[in-house]
């Protein structure tokens, strides 16, 4: 079972900082990373976001390191493709016997992409690890996102945790009865798990309708929550940081390392 990042968002040391500010910092960092023409700014973003997560929010370093591995397989495969299909510039490496070569342009593009992914993912982790989703719902509400979308998301959120708990228990009970031992049994066991979970989901849905009816459901969910105070110094620091990385991103635009 995966670690749900949300669990850390409830307990981290940046919990009390205004969620709007955290969201703003995270999203701005992502945008700077994605649009940066050179690898320096995204790498700085990655460093800054990681520092915020590790030093300010006090997320355990080992857990964070494992998180960084999640996108690795996708990144390695797709960046490898780009490395080989992008021509131009000097040839750096040639694969003997095959028409494959790595050129300077390819290497530069691969490096830039790696930097952007790194910067983007670290910014995403910053949001995910410091800002509880329930507070993001309130921001979305204030941003006039359609109510029906937020309501659906809120109900889904609640049931994700109920079903994850049940899926975990079913999985454990299968393992105790020696399920998942060989490949064939694994597929069988997984099918049973999914089927049982589907039934449980269906029952939960019916129970939820009943529970909502019992409480006079009239198409409304939630209350306008109170906003957390926004400290001016925090806002100033955030603006300074974003201005800085944006400036670096512009000024290092043409920089290529190879």
């Amino acid at each position: 079972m995966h670690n749900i990042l949300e669990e850390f968002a409830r307990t981290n040391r940046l919990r009390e900082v205004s969620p709007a500010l955290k969201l703003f910092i995270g999203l701005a960092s992502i945008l700077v990373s994605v649009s940066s023409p050179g690898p320096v700014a995204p790498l700085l973003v990655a460093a800054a976001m990681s520092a915020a997560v590790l030093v300010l929010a006090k997320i355990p370093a080992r857990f964070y390191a494992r998180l960084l591995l999640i996108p690795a397989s996708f990144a390695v495969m797709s960046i490898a493709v780009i490395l080989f299909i992008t021509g131009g510039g000097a040839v750096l490496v040639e694969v003997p016997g095959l028409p494959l070569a790595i050129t300077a342009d390819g290497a530069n593009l691969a490096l830039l992409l790696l930097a952007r992914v790194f910067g983007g993912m670290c910014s995403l982790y910053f949001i995910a690890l410091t800002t509880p989703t329930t507070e993001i719902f309130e921001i979305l509400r204030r941003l006039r996102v359609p109510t029906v979308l937020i309501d659906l998301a809120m109900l889904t959120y609640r049931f994700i945790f109920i079903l994850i708990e049940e899926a975990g228990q079913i999985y454990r009970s299968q393992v105790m009865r020696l399920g998942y031992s060989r490949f064939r049994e694994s597929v069988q066991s997984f099918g049973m798990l999914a089927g049982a979970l589907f039934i449980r989901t269906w029952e939960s849905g019916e129970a939820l309708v009943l529970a909502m009816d019992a409480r006079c459901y009239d198409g409304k969910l939630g209350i306008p929550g109170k906003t957390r105070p926004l400290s001016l110094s925090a806002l100033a620091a955030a603006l300074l940081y974003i201005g800085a990385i944006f400036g670096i991103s512009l000024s290092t635009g043409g920089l290529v390392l190879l």
Partner: protein
Amino acid sequence: MHIMEGFLPSPWWQIWFIVSLPFIVIGLYQLNKLVREKREALPLLAVAGAFVFVLSSLKLPSFNGSCSHPTGTGLGGILFGPCIAAVLGLIVLVFQAVFLAHGGITTLGANVFSMGIAGPLVAYLIYKAGTRAGANTYATVFLAAALADLTTYVVTSVQLALAFPGSVGFFGAFTAFAAIFAVTQVPLAIIEGAIIALVFKYIVQL
């Protein structure tokens, strides 16, 4: 198969948001109407979304990465229509991004299109065609699920090839991306097809 944060450059990530937007807007409009008429639709959609999320967060046998389960939303498509399924897909993908670090924010548009729209649409069409032709139900379900997975993977490869044609052009790049992802995605599609067929069988037995 999720494209991760930071991978799609401008203008491609914006383009995929624009491509997905009409489906989402229509979906929201339909959803609003549906909820007004049948209030219990909302909780049922919510548990369906949670189900898809939880299924995708479980490890498939023999695979470390999670899979996208477009067929889960495909089920939503069969019940509520493809546009509402796209809304469901959007929600699930946002939660996958912030809970599991699968996918991202800027790549959300592209991922919604491949996993929330294209995949479920294929599942929906095959299921409809199969039941109309009176084919074996399990075979139909297997095909719908497996091909939905494959569609998602093909669309993702197209998205990447469009963004990074390299010096070999779109078709060359597409071939390269498709080939390398085939290593994991083709067996994954077959396993998912088998599992969804098993689930179907399980439910029918009850």
